[in-house]
Structure formats: structure tokens, C-alpha cells
């Protein structure tokens, strides 16, 4: 480091640039090296000469700052303390797009770490310049500027508001149509970071008329564009029922469902969560999700995915869809997903989060489910806390429906119910009693455990009348 330092002040400009480039590469590789760069007191020199030198030097110096700032918040803080932010902001006004790109990149890496650093970047007056950078014709510059805006606005609503006040939303919304995939990724990420904080910001994003254009992003060939598009729609849908309604009316639910069907892995996760949020708001929206054929993809997600957190999200979404009315619960139960949920709940390898979510979903659906054929298979292997809900539902439906009673007997449900051991006086016992009262006594006795032994005993004790 002490060797490179004097080279930074060499007379020949190329040597200066190469020295800066070398420093940047060193710092980029490892954070210990970056720390050494900071300790070697090189940054103030770089920052000073940044303002005077030519564009190659500026690019190289911005590269060094970026490389140092990306490792940890403390190093980024050291960069900020050298007064690098003002110089970088000045670089953003340079004519050369490469310089602008390097400066925007450095600012983005610094702002990424936490909200104080983001605030420092905003205070240096970088946001309006970044919005100007977005409008430049060079694609790389647009990408980097969009990613920096996304990093700035993700920390807090005030920062997002600052970005919005600079007029970023309109430009970002225009760029959704750009064919470049990486640019679309960054733009969608920026919009979703803005929209996630509050209802007003989400409404502002929606007013920029991104629907239905953003639905085309869900059909893009790039996976991450799809993921970020789904994230954006999710952040908008989660705030209020009106926004969800708007998205449903624009056909967003269908697009997201198709997107879930076509992706694999973590790319699906935002889409699943979006469906869950939409269905959670009201029963009409939940019915809209069902009508748009949303349940089969959710079931396939639940079954196919390996990662627990995606499964948990799918279970949660199904719970939200099915919990409103018996119609909804029936739609979910018909898809034959309840046994899967139960098995996931019982599985010891599932994470705790997954277990909790499946249990809640099961409970919510079961409390409204009156579709008995789907409830039957659950009778056989449910644990007691689930069993009481199942038996409760039976006890509500059986007294009124004679055909169901017949089916209940023939499918062996009554037998199973007799085998359940419940504490007298508990709710489960009450339900069992209600069910037993729906049937004639003989049949209840017939199915009670140990009845065959009783009968045989009677046979044994019977004295034939000759």
C-alpha cells in the first residue's frame, strides 16, 4: 500500500490511473485489504484529486471508493467521512457516462448498508442527479442509477418519499417497457422498494399507470424480472383491499397465477405471497382468486417445493383463501390439499415456522369446511387438537343431512369416531355425543370398540331355549 501511494501522485497520468485501478482491485477482493486501503490514508488523496483529474482517473477513483464501501457499514462510513459523497455527487454531473456510472455505483454500494448512510447520500444531493442519470440513453448508466435509487429507498418511508419527490416514479414507470432484462430487474426492484412502505406511496406508484404494463414483465424470459415484477405487485396488493381490488380488476391475479405455474424455486415466492395477501383482504377477493383458478398452482407449490419457507408461504396463502366461508373452504378442500397440509404439520422434519403456518391454515379451513368427503380421510390420522375441529364440523353437518350420515357410516367414519378417546366434559366429547345422537343406538353400539367381544360373550352366555 505504501508503494502504490506515491504512484498516485506520479506525473504520468496513466500511471496514476493504473495505480488507482490496482488499489481498487485490491480493495475489491477482500475486506481486510479494503481496511488496509482505508488505514493507509489513501482515500483523502483520492477524493482531492478526483475533482481535478480526467475521466479515466475519476472512473478508477470511483471504482476504489466503491470497492472499499461495499464490504461493511464501517468501511462505508470511513468513505463517507473522507468527504467522498460530495465529490461523487459532482462526478454525477460529469459529461462522460462512464464516470457517472462509476459514481452512481459507488453511491449505491454505500447507501445499501443502512439508513444513516442512505440519508448521508441523500443529503449530498445525489437523488436529483440520479433521476437525471436515469434519463440518459446509455443502458448501463440507467441500470446502475435504478439500482442506486432502489438501494436508497428501501430503508425507510422518508427516504422513499425523497426519491418520489425528485420525480423518479414517472421515469421508472416508463422504463418498464425497455427490452433490456437487467434494466427491468432494477426498475421493478426500485418501484417495489418505494411502494412497500405505505399506502400513499403505493397509490402514487399505481397512479403512474404501471398496470397493465407490469403484467408483461411477468411473462418475461428472465427469471428475476418475473420475480421482481411479482414483488412489485405484492407490495402494492398488501396495503388495502381497494388496491387489491384494482389489481384483480386489471387481471393481475391471472398473470401472477400463470407466473407461479411457470417458475420454480424462490422465484415463485413473491407470487404466492401476493395471492395470500389478496385473498386475505375480503371474501369477494378470495372468491376472485378461486375463480381465476388460483388453487391448483398453490397446491403444486406446496407439494413440489423443497424449501420450507416456500411451503410455509403456500400453506399460509391457502389458509387465507379458504378461511372465509364454507364455499371457499369447499373449493380448497376439493383440491385435495388438506391431507398434504396435515402431513406437513405432522412431519418432524418440517421447520417450526412451517408447522405453525400449516396448523393455522388447517384450523382456519376446517372451521368453515362442510364438505364431508374431504374431511373423512383426515379423521384417521389427525392429532387431537386438529381432531376436535374435524369432529366439530361433522357434528354440525350430520344432524341435518341424512345422505351424509349414510356415507359417514359406510366409509367407516363412525367407527373411527367411536375409537377416539376424549376426556369427558371436553369439547371433543360433546361433539362425539352429538354425532352419536344422530344415529340409532344399535349402530353406535355396533361400531363401538370391543363390540364383537361383547357379542361373542353374549353368545357364550346364551342359553338356547329348546
Amino acid at each position, binding site marked *: *500500500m*505504501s*508503494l502504490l*501511494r*506515491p504512484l498516485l*501522485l506520479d506525473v504520468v*497520468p*496513466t500511471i496514476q490511473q493504473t495505480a488507482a485501478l490496482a488499489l481498487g482491485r485490491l480493495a475489491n477482493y477482500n475486506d481486510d*485489504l479494503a481496511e*488496509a486501503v482505508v*488505514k493507509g*490514508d489513501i482515500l483523502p488523496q483520492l477524493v482531492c484529486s478526483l475533482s*481535478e483529474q*480526467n475521466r*479515466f482517473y475519476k472512473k478508477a477513483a470511483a471504482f476504489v471508493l466503491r470497492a472499499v464501501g461495499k464490504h461493511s457499514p464501517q468501511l462505508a462510513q470511513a468513505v463517507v467521512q473522507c468527504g467522498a459523497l460530495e465529490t461523487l455527487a459532482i462526478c454525477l454531473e460529469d459529461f462522460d457516462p462512464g464516470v457517472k456510472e462509476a459514481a452512481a455505483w459507488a453511491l449505491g454500494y454505500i447507501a445499501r448498508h443502512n439508513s444513516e448512510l442512505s440519508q448521508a447520500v441523500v443529503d449530498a444531493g445525489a437523488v436529483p442527479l440520479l433521476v437525471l442519470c436515469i434519463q440518459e440513453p446509455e443502458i448501463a448508466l440507467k441500470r446502475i442509477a435504478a439500482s442506486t435509487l432502489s438501494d436508497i429507498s428501501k430503508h425507510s418511508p422518508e427516504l422513499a418519499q425523497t426519491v418520489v419527490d425528485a420525480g423518479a416514479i414517472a421515469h421508472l414507470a416508463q422504463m418498464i417497457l425497455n427490452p433490456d432484462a437487467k434494466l427491468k430487474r432494477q426498475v421493478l426492484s426500485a418501484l417495489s422498494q418505494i411502494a412497500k412502505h405505505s399506502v400513499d406511496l403505493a397509490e402514487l406508484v399505481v397512479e403512474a399507470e404501471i398496470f*397493465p404494463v407490469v*403484467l*408483461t414483465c*411477468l*411473462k*418475461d*424470459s428472465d427469471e428475476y424480472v418475473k420475480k421482481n415484477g411479482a414483488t412489485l405487485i405484492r407490495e402494492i396488493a398488501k396495503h388495502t383491499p381497494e388496491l387489491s381490488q384494482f389489481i*384483480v*380488476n*386489471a*387481471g393481475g*391475479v*391471472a*398473470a401472477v397465477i*400463470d407466473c407461479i405455474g411457470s417458475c420454480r424455486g424462490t422465484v415463485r415466492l413473491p407470487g404466492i405471497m401476493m395471492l395470500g395477501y389478496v385473498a386475505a383482504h375480503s371474501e*369477494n377477493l378470495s*372468491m*376472485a382468486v378461486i*375463480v*381465476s383458478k388460483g388453487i391448483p398452482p398453490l397446491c403444486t407449490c406446496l407439494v413440489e417445493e423443497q424449501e420450507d419457507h416456500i411451503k410455509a408461504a403456500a400453506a399460509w396463502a391457502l389458509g387465507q383463501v379458504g378461511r372465509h366461508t364454507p364455499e371457499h373452504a369447499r373449493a380448497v378442500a376439493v383440491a385435495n390439499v388438506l391431507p398434504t397440509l396435515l402431513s406437513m404439520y405432522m412431519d418432524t422434519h418440517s421447520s417450526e415456522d412451517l408447522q405453525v403456518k400449516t396448523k393455522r391454515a388447517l384450523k382456519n379451513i376446517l372451521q368453515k369446511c362442510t364438505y364431508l368427503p374431504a374431511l373423512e380421510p383426515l379423521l384417521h390420522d389427525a392429532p387431537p387438537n386438529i381432531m376436535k375441529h374435524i369432529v366439530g364440523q361433522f357434528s354440525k353437518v350430520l344432524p341435518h343431512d341424512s345422505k351424509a350420515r349414510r356415507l359417514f357410516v359406510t366409509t367407516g367414519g363412525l367407527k373411527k369416531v367411536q375409537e377416539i378417546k376424549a376426556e369427558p366434559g371436553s369439547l371433543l366429547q360433546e361433539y362425539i355425543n352429538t354425532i352419536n345422537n344422530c344415529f340409532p343406538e344399535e349402530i353406535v353400539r355396533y361400531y363401538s370398540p370391543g363390540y364383537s367381544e361383547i357379542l361373542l360373550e353374549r353368545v357364550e352366555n346364551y342359553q338356547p331355549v329348546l
Partner: protein
Amino acid sequence: MNPAPPSPGRSPGRLRRSAHTGPGAGGGRAAPQAPAGRARKRLGPRQEGGRHHLSPSPAPHRQHRAPSPLTGPRRPLGPSPRGCLCRPRSPHGAGPGRGRPRLPAGGAGWYGPLPWWRRRRAGGGSGGSMAALARLRARLPALREECFRRNRCVDEDRKIKYKAAVKIQSWFRGCRVRAYLRHLNKMVICIQKRWRGYQSRRYFRKIVKTAYFIMKMNFYNEMAVRLKSVRSFWTESGVNKGRMWHLIGTLSALEIQKRWRGYYVRKYIHNYYALKKYLEAVSVNNEIVRNELQEYAEMNEKEKKKKDQEKKEKEKEYQARKMHYLLSTEQIAGIYNSPFRKSPDPMELLLRQSKPLSHRRQQVKSPFRDELYDWPTCTRPPTFHAGESLPPIGRQKPQGPFRDTAEVLRQRYMPLEPTLRVAASIDSPLEKARVEMKRGEWRNHIHDNEFLPFSSYHKNEKYDLSIHRSGKYGQETYGIKHFREVQPNKWVTGKDFQTVLPSIVLFEKFGKTYSRCGQIV
């Protein structure tokens, strides 16, 4: 607010007056005007409406007063007995509301009649005054006694009369107050009875209302029970609607509420048909969106394919142009045109179509191009004028000691070659030197730690591992054994170059002026 009592003021006054009329009348004889005047005066206040201060009222008879047994013949008395006789009476003029005390005309009133000597003079005039004097003197002792006797009587009377007056007055006042209290009592009773009547009527109204309401509710509920049974009976028996309407008037409140709530909820809150329509519209919309997105995805794929294809073709063409020499000729068949094939290979056809790639030199970046931009002082590359400007066509040489036109033009259009001093920056050399010195120091230091005087300052220092000594596999030779590459055999001179050359103005003009001095012949 004293209602005028039946004026008892007269009688005491009269009583008193009758007690005192004697001397008053006596005084009246002496001054006949006075009683009349007195009477007249007294009539005034009397007519004012009855003062209860018991002003003495004038006697109806004025002139002749019978001598009372108390007073004896009318004899004018001295002023003092008269005065003391008159004292218990409230003075004429001191009554409440009266004006100034009015003295009767002539001064003779009951205040004090005319003194005896004046009276005497007014009355008689002639006749033996000495005799009268003797007579009077004879009467004097009797007079004294008479005076005392009269006073005593009057005093005794006074007490009795005073007590009597007090009694009368107190009784009278009591009467009046009692009357007043009775009156007040009557008023109060009137008000209270009115008010209480009002309150209880209000309360009664309230009670009546609640009782009515309860009655009504009971009645309605009974009707509901009755209605249900009746209605079921009627629907089973298929009675027409007309009869039903008859009963609507007696529908219970509960029934009405049930119907209304059901209607409201079904129409506005859980409107089933609207929801159904909405869901149908949603699915239709979804279909449209899905189709559009499908089209969009297909379009994207097509575009991508097309782009890939174009790229491939471009590659092929470029290859063909590069390998144009593989084209088959008349004599020799090329690689792609094997005689055993039925038709030439597509590559062959491509080769036939393509134009050979010319040996265009790659654009070599001039080594100076970038660096010249980067010099802080020189922002444009020096333009060496390429070629000489052509002389004007067919111009005859002008007559006279003129130079050659071409030379003149060359001189005129010679580009600017500024001196080093001009080309140098504006900053003063002192500043530059300072900055330079600082930089030099910074550059030449191996480390920035300042020199500490005593070794004890170094005690708690932690050793900084230098990077280029702490390599993974031990010490590295770079930085110890060798630094940069150094090749002394290539050096031009043994000494370093001087960084700044002093400028000699004369030498800079060499070859740039018209004069030919200094040029080698």
C-alpha cells in the same frame, strides 16, 4: 304599602284637640285670623290623604270654643306653658313628607300664641293698665300653682295616654302585618298548587306513554304468534294474496324488522347476483389478459429467435468473407464443392455470393490520442497542418517587393505554438512549488508517523503487519529483493533529467520568424 286604615287619626287628634282647644281658641280670639288660617292650613295636609302621624285636625268650629273645664276661662297664658303643652304633639311641619313647617299666619298658632303683652295690646288698648297690672300680679301665685297642677295632670295623663297610644299602635300594626302575611300565604299557596299540578301532570303523561307502549308491544307479539300459526295455515290452504294483505296491518314489529333487514342485506351488502356477475366479469377479464400475455410472450420469443438467427447468419457471412479463398475455381474444386456431391454445399453458395474481405487496417489507436486529452493544460491535440495550402491559380506575381504568396499564406495560417510560459497554468509558481513540495514530502515518506522523542512513547504500539511481507507462504521477495523492474543498460545517461528547462526567449523564436538570421546556409 300600607293600605289606608280607617283613619283613626281623627279621633285622637280630635281628642287632643279638644284638650287643647281652649288655649288655642283663646289665641284664636286674640287673632281671629289665626285659627282660620290654622284651620285652613290644617285642611291642606288633611286632604293629602291621611297621614298616620296623627296630625291634629282642625276643629270644625273655629270661632267659638267652649271653655273646657281643664283650662277654665280663656286666659292667655305665657308662652312657656303653651309651648310645653304643645310639645307632645308632633309638630305640624315635621310630618313626613311635609314641606317646610308652615307657621300659621301671624305667628299665632299652637307653637306659641302671641305673648300676653302683645295680645293685650291687640285686644284692649284703653282702660286702666295699672289696674290690669295689679290684677295680674294678684293672680300670679295662683297662676304658678295652676301651672304646676296642670302639668302634673297632664303628666299623669301623658303616661296613660302614651301607653294607650302605644297599645293602639301596636295592635294596629299587628293587624296590618297579619293581614299582609295572610295575603302572602294566599299567594304562595296559589303558586305552589299550580306548580305541583303541572309536575304531576307531566309525570302522569310519561307513565301513560310507557304503559301504552308496553301494551302495544304485548299486543303485537301476541299477534306475531298468532300470525305465524295463521299464516302457515293459510299458505297450506292456498289462500290468495288478498287475504294476506289484510293481515299486513297487524304484522308485528319483529316481523317487519326481519323482512327489512333481510332485504337490505341482500340488496346492498351481500348482493349475490352482483357478486356473481362480478366474478364472471373477472374470469372473462382474466382470459383476455392471459391471451394477451401469451401473445406477448410468443412475440418475445419470436423476436429472440430472430435475433439469434440474424446473429448466426452474420457470423457465417463474416466467416465466408474471411475465407473467400476457399471458393472453388474452374480448375480446382473447393472444399465445399466436392465433385461427388450432387449439388454444392450451402457454404459454397455463400462463398460465391460474398465479397472478399479487404485488408483494411485495424484502426490503431494513436498512442497520443488519449493522453493528449488528459494533459491538464493541453485539451486539444496539436493539429499539424497536413500539406501545404495550394497557391492561388494563375495569379501573376504582383509587381513590387512582395513576398511569395505561398509563403505569406503559410505564415498567416501557421497554427499557434504558444510559449511554455503562456501554455503554463495561471497559478503562480510559488503556489505550485508549494504544492509540489508538499507532494514531494508526502511521496517520499515511508510512513506518516511522526518522530517521537523518547522510546517510552513506543511502548504501547501495536505492530502493523505490512501486507507485502505477510504473504500466505511466508515472506515475499517482491518489495524486498526487487521493486520495479530496473534495466540500467537501457538508460541514456547516467544522470537524471532536469524537470524544468529555463526558457530562453530568443531560442524559441528560432525558425519561426521571417528573418534568416541563424539559419544554416
